[in-house]
Each structure stands twice: as C-alpha cells, then as structure tokens.
C-alpha cells in the first residue's frame, strides 16, 4: 500500500497512562428477553443471538431473537394499550415521559458504559453526548405532551395508533430516544427494535421504562435482525413506520408500505459536504473536519465525509489536518482519553476496508494516522484520501467509517454544484468568517442540516432530517411532532 507520509514536526511526547472508566457498577444480565406488554418474555421460537463487544470481539450477552410471532404479540399489546394511552390527558402522558428522562439521568453512567461496551464508541462521547442528549429528548417532548394544541393551532392533532420503530447501531440509546419521545408525547403506542449489534442500552431503557410505571403495552422493545424488522414493517396492524438506517433498507421499506395505509418517516444515509473557505478560522476548521468525520468512528449518517477545501488554503489545511490526526488517541473505548473507538462490527469493518481498497485502486492518495491499533477487535485508523474527485466511488458512496475524501475547489458556485452533486442530502458544513457567504450557501445547499463554523451539533429542539435519498420527515423540535399525528 502506498502511504502518503506525514513529516510531523510537532509529535507529542508525553503519553497518558490508561484511565479506564470503571465497570463494576454496571449490571448486565447473561440473557435478555423481549419486553412486551410490560413484561420481559421469552421469544416464541426460543432463539437467541450474541451481542459482541466490538473492541475485543468477545460475547457480552445473549439476546432474544423476535420472530414474526413475537412481533405479532407485541403489536397486539401495543394496539390494546393504544386506547387507554391516547385518551390520557397530555399532562398525564408527560409525567411518564419526564420520569423516563430523569431515570436516564440517574443511571447515566451505567448507560454510558454499556453503550461503549456494546457499540465501541469512546466513553467520553457516550458520557458527554449520547446519554445527556437522550435524556434531553425525553425532557423536551415531555414538555410538548400537554401543549400539542399550541404546536398545531386551530387543528386537533390525533395520534396515529401503533408505531413500528426501527433504529440503527451508531447511536443506540439516542436514536431510541429520538423515536420514542415524540411518539409517546403525541399519544401513540410503540413497538421498537434496536439494531442487532447494539441492543443492550435499548433493553436497559426497557427496564427504566418499566420502572417509570407507564401502562403496559405502551412501549414494547423487541430485539432481532433484519427479518424481525421486516416483520414489523409488514405487519398489517402497524399504522406507521419510523426508520433510521441505510438508504438500501429505506428503499425496501418504501416499497413494502406502498399501497398500504401506513405512513413512513425515513432517516437514511448521507455523504455530507464540509466546505472550508480561505477566509475561515483555519485552525478551528481543522478541528471541525476532525469532528465531522472521526466523531463516533465516522459511523454518523450526517458525517462530513466529503471535504472541500478552497485551493488557496488547501496545503495549509491538509498539513494541519494530518498533524491533528496524529494526536488522536485510538483505542479502548472505555478509556477516558480515547478519541476514536472501535468499529461497530466485523461486518462494518469489512465494508470500510473494502472501500479503502477501492479508493487505493482508483488512484486516491491515502494517508492514515500512525496510531498503534489494538491487536484484537475491529479497528480502523483515521484515514484521508487526497487527490480524489466527484467521479471516485469513495466520494460518491457512503462509507460509514473514519474515511474522509478530500477535494479542492476554486469558486463558490463550483463548490455548491459539487456539494449538491450527490443523491444524498442530509448534512453540510460551511466554514467562513464571512456571514453573508454563509447565507448564500445555506440557501443553495440541498441538505437537511447545515452547520456554520461547527459540525455534528445536535439538540432536541432542533429538527433533523434529509433531502433527496437521505429520507423524509423530521425528528427533533416542534417539527418532530408532525410525523406522529393526523388531523380529521
């Protein structure tokens, strides 16, 4: 492999001792069952699968695999609970949701450790971002529960009924929160399925939801892989599907629900453009590039995976980026100093490695940080591809890993055209010290979220969602209520 060497003149010399987050306060059962109708119940067919720690590839626990029979039981429970739940006053529903939020806060540390164990993300991200934001979402929508008439003035919002929710493995607890909170606030009942590689925090959430005393059947959490998801999508008594995941599966869901009464929201893949202008605060922009692509190992649908640098500053930005990549600490997700953790699964690592091969074969110049990767587990060093173009496959397709495709541009109209030259439209970033330029771009970029002089910032009050093949419907904010209500 031809490596693009970095002459790093600012090498760090002081290495920090290991600072592992303690795990002795965490309770993980050997075996997890399905949470249906307010009880943990064994799956009908009695099948279980393993959930693996991606940083060691060792088994953490066995998790029940829900088949179509289990899905049917869960949907029936949700249907039965719907009448009572939807006729509760908003104020009463809000009480339960507030309670869930507070319970997440109380057990935040335990959630953070499990999220990092099961998914491979650095503890500082699960501790400082995933878990607090998940609680934040429940708090936010708890507040809306008794104010729906203000969100939809002069209209009478009604819940849809039973909602099937299928969530991805990159932000397991946070995505569960994004899905559950608005659905519950608006009076729907839910069957939720976490991803098969990261089911543990959703199952912990089931324990908390149980503790909150919410009426049985309102929330059902069932585990399994793609087939379980398909059973939810195809179940005739589900009124709505909310899905976050790959564009491929999103297209399958669209097809499956065509001709039915089900409504759908999809939050799918992305290939976000991160645009650095010559008048940007360069050093902070470099930090923004790192946040955009190496945050959560690049397992972020809104990652800034296509970097566009104005040609006049390209050399400076690339050099500073390489230097910065050298200081990223890659390794044990539970170490408090880890910046980049483990790749979520063996399967995902293979996908990423395959794209890296494609990039090299297509003639891109690869640069990888010289970090030492642990021997066991799934790891990928932070990676750049220089000298690539819109015609390269690694620029066109979502890699969902710590791999950044770097291009240069000359004029503002050129970069707008290139940024929009993708079937995706989830996120974009603009770095400039010129306020007028920011608005010029935000009007023209086809992306659901556009960050100015920052990247990958989330808040419960801010709607999130895609254009084009990145999906439809919004999550978060007042807009996030829309997909869960109907009007007479």
């Amino acid at each position: 492999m031809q490596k693009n060497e970095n002459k790093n003149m600012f090498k760090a010399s002081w290495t920090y001792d290991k600072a592992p987050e303690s795990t002795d306060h965490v309770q993980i059962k050997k075996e997890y069952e399905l949470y249906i109708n307010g009880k943990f119940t064994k799956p009908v067919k009695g099948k279980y699968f393993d959930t693996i720690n991606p940083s060691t590839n060792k088994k953490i626990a066995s998790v029940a695999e829900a088949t179509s029979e289990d899905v049917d039981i869960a949907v029936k429970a949700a249907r039965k609970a719907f009448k009572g739940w939807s006729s509760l006053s908003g104020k009463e529903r809000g009480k339960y949701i507030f309670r869930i939020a507070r319970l997440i806060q109380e057990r935040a540390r335990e959630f953070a450790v499990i999220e990092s164990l099961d998914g491979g993300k650095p503890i500082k991200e699960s501790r400082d971002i995933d878990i607090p934001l998940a609680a934040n979402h429940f708090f936010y929508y708890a507040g809306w529960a008794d104010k729906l008439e203000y969100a939809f003035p002069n209209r009478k919002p009604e819940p849809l009924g039973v909602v099937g929710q299928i969530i991805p493995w990159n932000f397991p607890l946070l995505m569960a929160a994004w899905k559950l909170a608005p659905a519950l606030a608006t009076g729907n009942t839910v069957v939720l399925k976490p991803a098969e590689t990261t089911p543990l925090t959703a199952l912990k959430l089931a324990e908390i939801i149980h503790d909150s005393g919410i009426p049985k059947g309102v929330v059902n959490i069932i585990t399994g892989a793609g087939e379980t998801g398909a059973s939810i999508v195809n179940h005739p008594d589900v009124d709505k599907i909310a899905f976050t995941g790959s564009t491929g599966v999103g297209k399958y869901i669209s097809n499956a629900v065509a001709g039915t009464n089900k409504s759908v929201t999809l939050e799918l893949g992305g290939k976000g453009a991160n645009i650095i202008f010559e008048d940007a605060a360069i050093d902070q922009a470099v930090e923004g590039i790192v946040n955009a692509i190496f945050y959560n190992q690049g397992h972020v649908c809104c990652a800034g995976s296509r970097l566009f640098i104005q040609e006049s500053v390209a050399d400076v930005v690339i050099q500073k980026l390489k230097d910065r990549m050298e200081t990223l600490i890659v390794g044990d997700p539970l170490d408090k100093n880890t910046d980049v953790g483990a790749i979520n699964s063996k399967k995902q690592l293979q996908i990423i490695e395959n794209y890296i091969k494609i990039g090299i074969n297509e003639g891109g110049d690869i640069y990888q940080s010289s970090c030492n990767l642990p021997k066991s587990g799934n790891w990928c060093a932070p990676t750049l591809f220089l000298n690539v173009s819109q015609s390269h496959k690694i620029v066109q397709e979502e890699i969902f890993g710590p791999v950044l495709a770097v291009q240069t541009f000359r004029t503002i109209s050129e970069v707008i055209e290139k940024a929009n030259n993708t079937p995706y439209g989830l996120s974009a970033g603009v770095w400039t010290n010129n306020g007028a330029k920011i608005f010029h771009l935000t009007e023209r970029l086809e992306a659901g979220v556009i960050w100015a002089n920052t990247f990958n910032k989330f808040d419960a009050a801010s709607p999130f969602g895609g254009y084009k093949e990145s999906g439809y419907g919004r999550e978060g904010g007042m807009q996030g209520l829309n997909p869960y209500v109907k009007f007479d």
Partner: protein
Amino acid sequence: MHPNLNNLPVYDTTGVNERIAKFCSRSIKKSSKNEGLKLAISMIDLTTLEGKDTKGKVQQLCYKAIHPHDSLKDIPTVAAICVYPSYVGVAKKALEGSKINVASVATAFPSGQSNLEVKLYDTKFALDQGADEIDMVISRGEFLAGNYNFVFDEIATIKEACGETHLKVILETGELDTLDNVRKASEIAMYAGADFIKTSTGKIQPAATLPVTYVMLDAIKDYYLKTGKMIGMKPAGGISTSKIALQYLVMLNEVLGEKWMNNKYFRFGASSLLNDILMQLVKAETGMYQSPYYFSKD
C-alpha cells in the same frame, strides 16, 4: 523580517473553547501525572512582583526555589526567579551556585507607560544587575491605536539592548480583548525578536487563560513552520493549581509536542502553583493529602 499583519489567521472563540474543553477532559493519572507535575515544577518562574517586596522577601523566595520540599526526592528546582530590577542583584547572590536563572521585569512594568529612554534604562539596569532573562511589556495603548510599527520598533530596540539575554515579551492579553488581537501582537513580538511570548503581567484580569495561550501556541507553530525558529511560551498569572498546570501541559503536548516540552521553551509565571504541585506529589507518594501547614510559604 517583518510580519504580514494583513493576512493573519483568524480565530473563532467558540471553536477555540471547544478545543480547550477537549484538552481539559484528558484524564491524567498515575505516573503520567507525576511526570507532568515534576515537569511543571521545572518550568516555573517563581515570581514576586509587589510594591512591598524587600531584600528579605526575595532572599527567602530564592531559598524556596532551591529547596522546594527537601523531604521529597527527585524534585527539580524551578526554572527562574522573577523579580523587579531592584532585586536582581539580591536574587543573583542568593541563587549563586544553583542553575536557577534570574528573570527581571522591565520597560516600565506593568503598564509600559513611559518613553523608550526610560524603558531602555530600566532594561539596562536589570542587565547590569546580572539578569539572565528580561520580561518586557508591550505598549498596549499604541497597539490598540493601530501603531504596530511603534510596538515592533520598541521590542526590537529592547532586544538589541538585551543581546544574547533571553527576552520575554508580555502582551498583556487581558487588555487586548480579542483572540485576533492576541495573534497579531504575538506575530509582532516574534518578528521583532522575542525569545518568548508571555500572556500577562499578573496585574490585569483576566491574566493567563487557556484559549489565549492556545492562540499564542498556534502563532508559535506557524512562525516555526515559516522561519524554523522556535519561540518559547509563558502563560503567567492565575495558574495556581496542579490541575490547571496539567491542562496547560496537555495543550502544549498536543499542539507543539516534544520539542517544546521543557523549560527552555515553556514557563509558568506563578507564585502559589509550586506548593500545590508539591502537595499533589506528596499525596502520590504517601497516599494522603497533607495539611498546607507542612509546605513552606516564602
């Protein structure tokens, strides 16, 4: 060589603060903590800059500099003692036989509100008394009025008077208000001949802060890339605990790295920091915190 002040990098305060938060969240434990703390002691410019300073006070401080805490083994001495010009001679004598330098503030410290002749005389006086390092202040009024050439020339003149003696240039960042100004002042100081750039006099609040120091380190980095010359950095004022000192060292480690991780290129201007570090080191050795009464205050 002159700086190009029209094309300087700009800074986004929010972005800088986010980066700082990352440095501060590093968890420094066990031997890396001990290593960092000892390094920090060796980087201290132990300082007394008060109107009420006397010969006795300076002598006592010098003794503390040589003997930080005799019951602890392998403790380095501090880098320098920092005093007013009138006590350079006293300090020089008290430190005889040690490797500790004597740094003197000069140029109408702390305000710098005087004419160049007085400033030059102040500097020469300190040099004649035997100062190994000079800490000068820039004319912030002239800087803020846009008279950059004035500021540049003043520094260059003082540097000429210093000759081989190390010159630290105090920007007094607490009066410059913006990070972009800090960058500009750093640029002027480095091109005018500073060996070190220093944040503050300690007389103005805020004194040293992590964001300001970050911008200065970034300026030092770019200057090195352009000229190949290494400039030192000295945050001064307000760094009173081990925790904060370690945050500075993490930042230094991850921004400028190995070559700057020594007292030739990095100093802390501080007075109470030393005892706090000693307390931490004793705790590491004995497993418990001792009362502050056990640490000598000079």
